[in-house]
Structures are given as structure tokens and as C-alpha cells.
């Protein structure tokens, strides 16, 4: 890997120069209704032992780079939770087509 600023994993962003000149936006807002619902669903599925936080992270980390940076925080969570529920056969693609 010749480019020292390309980390080998999308989410592993400590020190990346590409954010060097991006001020930290001091957004203090609580999650919106969608975010709170995704958050509650994740907790519930973890409590029911259908997924772990480590699996959630692995799912988030496997989101392709362009989408990782384009999706909102809780959209990344939803993407991971949905993939995990499919992977584990808890739900099927057909059921999600609804």
C-alpha cells in the first residue's frame, strides 16, 4: 500500500488527512425519530441474543466506502442490522420486499 493515508479499512479513520480541514460541526441534536427507532431495535435484538454489538460493527465496517461516508449514522446501523438478520435467517429477502 503505497499511499500512507489510505487506511486498509474504511471505518478506521483516526488521523486521516482527508478530514484535516473539516471543522467539527458542533451539532448537539438528539437523534431523530428514525435514529431512536433504529437504536431501540438494535438494543432489543441484542437483548434477545439475536445479534451482538461486535456483529453490528462488523456489518457497518463491510459497507462499501462510498456508501459508508454517504449514509447517515443510523442508516449505517440499519444497513448492518438488516444484513445480519438476513445472514442469520431471522428474516428473508422476500419478507423485506413486503
Amino acid at each position, binding site marked *: *500500500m503505497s499511499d500512507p493515508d489510505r*487506511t*486498509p*479499512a474504511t471505518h*478506521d479513520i*483516526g*488521523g486521516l488527512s482527508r478530514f484535516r480541514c473539516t471543522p467539527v460541526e458542533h451539532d448537539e441534536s438528539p437523534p431523530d425519530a428514525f435514529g431512536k427507532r433504529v437504536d431501540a431495535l438494535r438494543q432489543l435484538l441484542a437483548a434477545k441474543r439475536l445479534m*451482538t454489538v*461486535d*456483529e453490528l*460493527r*462488523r456489518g457497518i*465496517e*463491510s459497507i462499501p466506502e462510498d456508501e459508508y461516508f454517504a449514509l447517515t449514522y443510523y442508516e449505517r446501523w440499519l444497513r448492518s442490522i438488516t444484513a445480519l438478520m438476513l445472514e*442469520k435467517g431471522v428474516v428473508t429477502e422476500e419478507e423485506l420486499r413486503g
Partner: protein
Amino acid sequence: MSDDAAPRFSPGDRVQVRDDWPERRGPCHIRTPHYLRGRTGTVERVLGAFPNPEDLAFARPAPRRVLYHVLFDQPPLWREGEPGDQVLVEIFEHWLEPAAAPAKEAA
């Protein structure tokens, strides 16, 4: 807890983070940030033993591993920064090797 192996390192020990890049070999989940691979630090405290997240992430049986708080000088990581500033990071034992005496990394 009593079944956990005794910690290999103690506070004050110099340790080197393995210069390993499993994410380049295939799907994995690791909690050791890229910027510490191959770096030398000092064990600050032993935090206890926790199931290995590298296994938990794939729903595999996860043996417990000892977790340490390891302290690194910040300027050498980035070749910039204020002397004396430091970075303190949780690192699992299987990512750490004993390191040579501190003089090596001065500067």
C-alpha cells in the same frame, strides 16, 4: 473470571503493537486502530479479560483475552504535535509483544 489466564504484561511494561494487517487478508473485525500497528507504548493498566471481539463479530465461540490500557507518545505517531501529549488506547493482549527498553523510541 478465575479461569482467565494471568496477564502477560504489567503496568510500566514496554510493549509493541503487532505490525499486522489482517484486513488486507480478508473479512475480519479488529479493534486495534491502524495508526498503532508496529508502535511502541507503555502498559498503563490491566483492564480485565473480555471475549475476543474478533470472534464475537462472526458469532464464533469467543475465548476471553486480557485487555490493557496502553499509553503512546502522540508526536511520533503523526510526526507532529506537542511533546508530552499522549494517546491512551485499549488493546488486547494478542496484539502486543514485549518491546525493548524505552531509550529506543526517544525523540
